[in-house]
């Protein structure tokens, strides 16, 4: 029972294989060219794919680093005019007179007192 069935399938396959072997040379040449073309395009594609695989993490890392750097850098805030009483001017040089605008206004209000004090202290010293 199996023998004739098997013969049928074997015969079909033999014919198919033989027909494939006996292809027109022009078709064979075109198939060969198509194969080479596919392999060349595939190589280029896989090279680009690998390059992309390599560059993608590097690019992502660079972007994250840039954002992190941007976030951590001190922000240049606009200078605000503080109330004069709260300001504490530090004279770095120590030689320049205090800035009249920034100095304590009580100093100027009691100038007469300080002048009298200085005068008295000088006369005390001369005695």
């Amino acid at each position, binding site marked *: 029972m*199996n023998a*004739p*069935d*098997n*013969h*049928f*399938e*074997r*015969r*079909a*396959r*033999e*014919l*198919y*294989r*033989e*027909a*494939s*072997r*006996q*292809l*027109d040379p022009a*078709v*064979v040449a*075109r*198939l*060969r060219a*198509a*194969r080479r*073309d*596919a*392999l060349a*395009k*595939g190589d280029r*594609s*896989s090279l680009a794919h690998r390059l992309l695989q390599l560059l993608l993490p590097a690019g992502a890392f660079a972007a994250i680093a840039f954002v992190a750097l941007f976030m951590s850098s001190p922000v240049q805030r606009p200078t605000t005019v503080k109330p004069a009483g709260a300001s504490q001017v530090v004279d770095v040089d120590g030689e320049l007179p205090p800035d009249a605008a920034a100095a304590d206004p009580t100093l100027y209000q009691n100038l007469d007192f300080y002048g009298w004090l200085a005068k008295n202290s000088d006369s005390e010293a001369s005695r």
Partner: protein
Amino acid sequence: MESHDGRADEPDEDGMNSAVSTLDTDLLAEDVRTAPASMNAFLAQVERRAFRMAELNLGHREDAMDAVQDAMLRLVKHYSEKPAQEWTPLFWGILRRRIVDLQRRRKVRSIMVGWLGGKDDDGEDLPAWEPADTGPGPLERLNDAQSYADMAAAVKLLPQRQREAFMLRVLEGLDVAETAQAMGCSEGSVKTHLSRALQRLRDQLEAWR
């Protein structure tokens, strides 16, 4: 009658299994495949048979060439990193889908040409779909040309899924699992389609027995 999802009813499963196992042991044993050394070697090995298969399905040489070329390119592009043992079902699966795509496109084009009455907007004749390449070709140089032509004609009359099962399983020699993978269906469906295909072909090619 085949169902629309490509699955068929599976009557007489035991009979089919025995037929398939006979195919496995007797027919496929003679053709033990080894993993190809490279993609180039694999494609060189299958390209002629792929062309014949596409030609049998499409009945048109240029379309067959396009289908094979596209299948080769897709395999190289997307699956060259896969193990070589997997290339065979992947390649035949890609080729099968490409053939189906071309058949659908052809159908749509013929419908469009029918709607437009064979004329374009300028009243010019639309390019007609070229008929199957029936002129004298290399097949006539074969001793078995007539037998092959008979088989090809009978195979073309099979329903799509039966034709695919027959070509992949019997002609190409894929095993049931590989055929199922290439066809995108279950192994049971492959056996059913193959059994029906063989039955029809035996009826049509009675002289071979």
